[in-house]
């Protein structure tokens, strides 16, 4: 038996596919919208030629490197800023400023500074992804429920115990929510970084395909990126619900 949710997804995508096919057939413009079948064929071709596999590999390394670094630095710095007033005062203006800046704009600069290889891509992905993680970590650690703190203090908890038994577990759901925001930003970072110049990657596949009027190839990359994004976000949502079920208790889905 299929769950109602899965059925809704199938219906929704089924209708969209039919509409897509109808519009593609009606327009008959292979530059703007190609038939889904053609995208499928292009997908198989790209797999067979080995191009797609290496594009995915390259993009994955850039994504994993940048996002991984963002997690480590974001959480680490968040903890540091929560713990020390001085560190917070020193870095707060920078964090606020850089968070509001479209860091993507620094892409060309990174190309010039770090070259066309992995380093520049990882740096850009890191920069687009790190701030939501950092800010949420900081917020999670700073907004601990006062009642909970009182309770553990009344039992004679040391500052260290307060940190590990209350503050950190209380901040975890915030941190996961930050990761969820960041994962989408990191994917955008990968694509944009590759558009500025690359030798391989899904963003570069989009660029390549557009240059050679290969609309089907372009959609292959777009679909793969979309699926990756959805999978990552859903996975983090799943973890968030498992980690902090009480936060979803009073929410009514409309």
């Amino acid at each position, binding site marked *: 038996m299929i769950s109602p949710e899965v059925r809704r997804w199938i219906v929704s995508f089924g209708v969209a596919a039919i509409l897509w096919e109808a519009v593609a057939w009606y327009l008959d413009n292979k530059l703007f919208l190609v038939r889904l079948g053609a995208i499928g064929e292009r997908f198989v071709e790209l797999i067979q030629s080995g191009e797609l596999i290496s594009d995915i590999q390259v993009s994955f390394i850039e994504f994993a490197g940048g996002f991984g670094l963002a997690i480590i630095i974001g959480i680490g710095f968040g903890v540091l800023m929560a713990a020390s007033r001085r560190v917070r005062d020193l870095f707060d203006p920078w964090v606020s400023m850089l968070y509001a800046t479209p860091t993507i704009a620094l892409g060309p600069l990174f190309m010039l500074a770090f070259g066309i290889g992995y380093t520049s891509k990882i740096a850009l992905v890191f920069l687009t992804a790190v701030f939501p993680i950092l800010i949420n970590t900081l917020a999670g650690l700073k907004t601990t429920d006062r*009642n*909970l703190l009182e309770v553990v203090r*009344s*039992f004679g908890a040391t500052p260290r115990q307060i940190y590990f038994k209350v503050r950190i577990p*209380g901040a975890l759901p915030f941190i996961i929510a930050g990761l969820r925001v960041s994962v989408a930003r990191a994917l955008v970072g990968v694509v944009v970084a590759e558009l500025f110049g690359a030798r391989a990657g899904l963003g570069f596949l989009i660029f390549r395909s557009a240059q050679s009027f290969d609309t089907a190839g372009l959609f292959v990359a777009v679909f793969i990126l979309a699926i990756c994004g959805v999978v990552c976000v859903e996975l983090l949502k799943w973890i968030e619900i498992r980690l902090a079920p009480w936060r979803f208790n009073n929410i009514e889905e409309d």
Partner: protein
Amino acid sequence: MNAPKLSTRDLCKSFQKDGVSIEVLRGLNINVAKGEFVSIVGASGCGKTTFLRLVNGLIRSSSGSAMIDGREVTAPGSDIAFVFQQDGLLPWRNVIDNTIIGPEIQGRNLGEARDLASSFLNLVGLRGFEKHYPHELSGGMRQRVNMARALTAGAEVLLMDEPFAALDAQTREIMQTELTRIWSETGKTVLFVTHQIDEAVFLSDRVLVFTVRPGRLKEEVFVKLPRPRELALKRSPEFGLYVDRIWRLIEEEVRESIRRETEEALLAARR
């Protein structure tokens, strides 16, 4: 008379607020015997909660001291347990893990703590809920866990700060009878803060009436009603007399407190 379990000597407390010193408590001398149930009533802002926090060692007094078994309290420890108005259960811990947090913090044997916690959860009527999470429980049940947690800490003195204030009236009455039962079964010394005069009379051996800020002891009333007490007692004339007497003691304090609150609000509005 035996040496008191809990006592305070000229306990005073002032806070600094916006550069102004506010005197909250003045010269409190209170003795509570071992196994005694004492309630504190008074108008809002009379420093009842501050008093409990001082006795627990959560905050330091401005002068004077609080003592347990003749030893001065300097920081929260294992000889006193606090039952807060908000249950303060850690939402990511299930009931049993919440209940053992006292012994866990104090570095005691966790296996023993678990056994102890189970028996106290049983005592408060929550057998079978060990693996439930706080968000799966009702307000009354959470307050029972709160109580079991304080009992599991093994302290002989329980400080309770309006633990039933957030509950609905019926649940509250049931919890009061439960508390008297638990108290008589465990023999704890209890200091109980409340707004409800009938609650104070029903539960206590003695009711302390505080004045408005700075809080001082206005009068103490010994409640000589027989135990064990059932809810029906609340409808007896003797009970009514006690409530009436305490209410008359407190009335002018409440009026004064309301007058001051209005005055302060007006001042704040003018600024």
